[in-house]
């Protein structure tokens, strides 16, 4: 009997994305969302998610990792259903959903951003439902600041199909910026006008040499400095926000305190330092509640696999780790042996080993 029920629900779940009538699709998605039901995830996918989780939580036991992966699968279904509710509902229904089903934590930071005279950048990871956070921000800031939102075109990221339509349906004043060269100019202009920008900086897996490598989940990850660059050049308040499922179709949008801007006098160093802070903020949230991060499956490809950062600030651990990294890099760096030898000699100088 239970099996039959599960099969029927699974069938209904499959019908949800393809239902022709959007109202029926929204109602079905809403019902499934409230039921808390999760279909079983494919085993290969679960294994890939577990691999990612083991990198971030090397000390967690097998059972704990499996449980995290199971919760992750449930979270991804929940966000898919919530997206369906948002995309298929009328504007009034979506506004009602945002008001009644999304609880705001850290409201003082949201209010401070709203009342801030200058520009504001809200950033999130691909964590939970960033679109819902953006909608809530847009509704809260209405009449105070115009919201500009960066997103990857659906041609580049199929998961973004319907994002622009959703934003424009609910927030009549919103400016959607597909991430390309023109969007960078438009983003800087928006900041100059004192408006708000929403971004998700954890999207990049860019190995073409323009990416920087910042600490993330105990390794180094490829990161683009765009968010930090915007914040520094636009002198914008930089507010982290994470919107995630708290169960049975309810969500929490959590706003953290704005990140302080570094000021070393060198823009490159400041961009790096602020990007590292952004990723540290995302890491803290991801470590605290890991199941809502969308990229566990692809985490190994986003990290520099063979660089493990020492877990403590003990200088000898960092020296040893650097020596090992430098040895591995020599093979791919013909012509840089002189620099590496000189650096190792400087690091081994007696005055560094009191």
């Amino acid at each position, binding site marked *: 009997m239970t099996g039959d029920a599960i099969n029927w629900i699974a069938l209904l779940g499959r019908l949800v994305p393809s239902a022709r009538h959007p109202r029926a699709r929204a109602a079905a998605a809403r019902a499934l969302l409230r039921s808390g039901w999760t279909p079983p995830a494919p085993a290969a996918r679960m294994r890939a998610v577990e691999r990612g989780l083991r990198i971030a939580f090397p000390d967690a036991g097998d059972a704990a990792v499996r449980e995290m992966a199971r919760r992750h699968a449930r979270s991804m279904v929940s966000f898919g259903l919530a997206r369906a509710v948002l995309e298929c509902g009328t504007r009034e229904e979506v506004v009602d959903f945002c008001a009644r089903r999304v609880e705001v934590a850290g409201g003082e930071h949201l209010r401070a951003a709203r009342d801030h005279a200058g520009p504001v950048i809200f950033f999130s990871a691909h964590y939970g439902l960033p679109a819902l956070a953006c909608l809530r921000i847009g509704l809260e800031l209405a009449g105070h600041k115009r919201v500009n939102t960066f997103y990857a075109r659906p041609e580049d990221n199929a998961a973004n199909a319907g994002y622009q339509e959703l934003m424009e349906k609910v927030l009549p004043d919103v400016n959607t910026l597909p991430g390309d060269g023109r969007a960078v100019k438009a983003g800087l202009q928006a900041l100059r006008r004192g408006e708000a920008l929403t971004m998700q900086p954890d999207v990049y897996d860019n*190995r*073409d*040499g323009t*990416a*920087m*490598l*910042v*600490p993330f989940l105990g390794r*180094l990850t490829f990161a683009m400095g765009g968010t930090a660059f915007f914040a520094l050049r636009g002198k914008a308040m930089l507010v982290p926000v994470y919107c995630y499922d708290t169960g049975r179709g309810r969500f929490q949008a959590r706003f953290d305190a704005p990140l302080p801007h570094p000021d070393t006098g060198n823009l*490159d160093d400041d961009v*790096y*330092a602020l990007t*590292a802070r952004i990723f540290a903020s995302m890491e803290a949230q991801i470590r605290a509640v890991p199941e809502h991060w969308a990229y566990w499956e692809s985490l190994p490809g986003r990290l*520099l696999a063979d*660089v493990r*950062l*020492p877990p403590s*600030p*003990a*200088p000898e*651990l*960092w020296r040893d*780790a*650097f020596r090992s*990294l*430098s040895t591995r*890099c020599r*093979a*791919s*760096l*013909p*012509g*840089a*042996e*002189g*620099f590496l030898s000189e*650096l190792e000699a*400087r*690091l081994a100088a007696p005055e*560094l080993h009191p």
Partner: protein
Amino acid sequence: MHATSPSGRPLRRPLRLAPLLLESLARARVLRRAPELPALAAPGAETIARALGVDMQAARALAARAARHQREVLLDPRRAGPAAALRRLRRETAAGALPAPAPDARATVLALPLTRAAVALVAGVARSGRTLRVLRTVASEACLRPFLPADGDARLCTAAELLAHARAARSGGATYVTFPEHYLAGGGASRRVSFLGGEHLFSILEAVLLARGARLLAADVEEGARAPRLRECPVGLASGTLAAGELDAVVGWVAGCAQRVIAADPAELLTWGAVERHSAEAVLRARVVSLGSLQGFLRAWKAEGAGLPDEVYGWSVAELERLRAAARAGQGGAA
């Protein structure tokens, strides 16, 4: 030949098919249970499409066949043992089999793209008891190790060991096997060559062995043919040493042979993943990423407050930035 019952009568058709069915099931089970054997990067359809100028549908079909061949070569020796795996390999590659070279007083270098036919050839030479040195790469280790008998004089070795063996007096009659399409030499021992629609880096190892008196044979496919044959390098050396032009000519000839073999039957190549990694562009990208990883590590070290002196940090980050900028511009950025 039909399978027979214990009494010697031919089995009825469904029963005759039973051993085949059981073998297929066993193979499928092994493939399912051990999907992640020693890594050969999966062939990427985009790489194949770009390299051969075929459409994506054809490239995907080729990639799927190449992936199946990879898994079979990796799994068969572990499942059925090396002897049975070699028999099967010979059966399946009969049409494109590479003949073993006749013994020669000189050392013989075989430059072979790592295909199923190359695996069968190397396994055959290894079993013949000849002195055999096979260049060790991740792919050759994974594909060939099970076929090298423990008690013979056949082994995998690095390029340096191979050159040292060739220098020694005992090298006469030895066979050296190299894999020009996927072996990447470090320290400037490579040349840029036009290969499969892009610029690739090819090692000068074969040319150096030729200069040391070995005869150089490469798998090649004649125009209009499909099956590869071994051809001797036509580049004659004016002296016992290599002039720059001669070196380039040998490397270019080796690359041309490899390209023709791969283009004749792309699904036979077991190292498509490496073809992408060894493009000049990918090598440059790897260099920029390596420099970036050093830079990222030093910055993380500094931010952690873990005893990295300011002057060492400032000097190293500035040097790394200079090297990265040079590498991005494609200059190599020698320090």
